[in-house]
């Protein structure tokens, strides 16, 4: 079966690179699962969990915040502003992120940026509830 080349990079480091079966990414317009030979897509990401499935063994789950995904015939690339394996993610880290997001909402000067900041905040709160 054809496999999908998947790369996940953040400014600080490259987190994942390899052949996988499918990847679920949290797009702003809804989650989507990318499988081999997917049509070219560019999508923005909301804060959430990227789930990587390989043929055998457990899924790899990685938390991403801000960024976008690109699918082209060579594979899927996720560029995230922050990325952390879920195992390294704990309640304290999420709480910190929520605090930052709340400050963003308070600092926002225009309606547009306030809307964006509060959206981020909501995503984070959902995530906190899910953990």
């Amino acid at each position: 079966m054809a496999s999908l080349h998947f790369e996940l990079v953040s400014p600080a480091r490259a987190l994942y690179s390899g052949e996988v079966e499918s990847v679920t990414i949290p797009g702003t317009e809804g989650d989507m699962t990318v499988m081999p030979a997917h049509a070219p897509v560019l999508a923005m990401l909301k804060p959430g969990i990227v789930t990587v499935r390989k043929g055998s063994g457990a899924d790899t789950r990685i938390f991403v915040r801000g960024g976008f995904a690109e699918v082209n015939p060579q594979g899927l690339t996720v560029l995230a502003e922050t990325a952390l394996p879920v195992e390294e993610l704990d309640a304290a880290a999420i709480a910190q992120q929520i605090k930052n997001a709340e400050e963003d909402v308070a600092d926002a000067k225009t309606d547009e940026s306030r809307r964006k900041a509060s959206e981020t905040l909501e995503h984070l709160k959902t995530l906190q509830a899910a953990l």
Partner: protein
Amino acid sequence: MPSLKDLRNRIASVKATRKITKAMQMVAAAKLRRAQEAAVAARPYSDRMAAVLANLASAMQGQAGAPMLLAGTGRQDTHLLIVATAERGLCGGFNSSIAKLAREHADRLVREGKTVKIMTVGKKGNDALKRLYGQYIVDTKDFRGVRQMSFAQAQDVAGIVLKMYEMGAFDVATLFFSEFKSVISQKPTALRLIPAQVEGVKPADLGGAVYEVEPEETEILADLLPRNVAVQIFRALLENAASEQGARMSAMDSATRNAGDMINRLSIKYNRQRQAQITKELIEIISGAEAL
């Protein structure tokens, strides 16, 4: 002719200097490893970012309504030079070679009749440029007391640059930094930041397909382009940090060696003079005894 005591003092002071340069070399070596790792880790992100941008740019080619950050303002009149250097000296030609490249660039633009504005990131670049180019410097930023460059700092700088661009303060922005090649080789580099440099990056072959863009092309570009500016600045800061430590390491290595040579030369001089003095004293005693 310096006296024996002068020579002794001189040797002691050169030895102290050698100890300091040796210590600095070792510190730079330790810091270099960390900085180098960070610089190398940041490369895939900015490379992928450049590739994605190139893909989008080629898809947008010829279409009206391309964002200003990608297509430019349509003018080339005012240039902003962002000069990123280190906060500290004693690292060989590192700071001056970046400043020199920026100077050449600025001179050329002025000759062409363009308006030049300079923003310095890092104290040393400001020091090097402010005497001759002080009237061009519009903003300075330094990261004294910052131990490890993080993305937040790059976003800081990018925020200032983007704000100036939105206000129409410049048409073209070029970033100057030193690319880290190896410990002994750092290359001063100029990178065009705005409008985004997409030539030279080969877009991926889509096999005739067109990108599906979610949500909207304009919205995604509006998010992507400012992010790209921050990412490129971040990369420049990391490359700079690694280059600085590399340059310091080799500069301090040769300083240590020079100090060693100097100590050898001074010791020979000291020993010769000491011997001459002993001989002279002996002659005085002997001739004194003979006279009796």
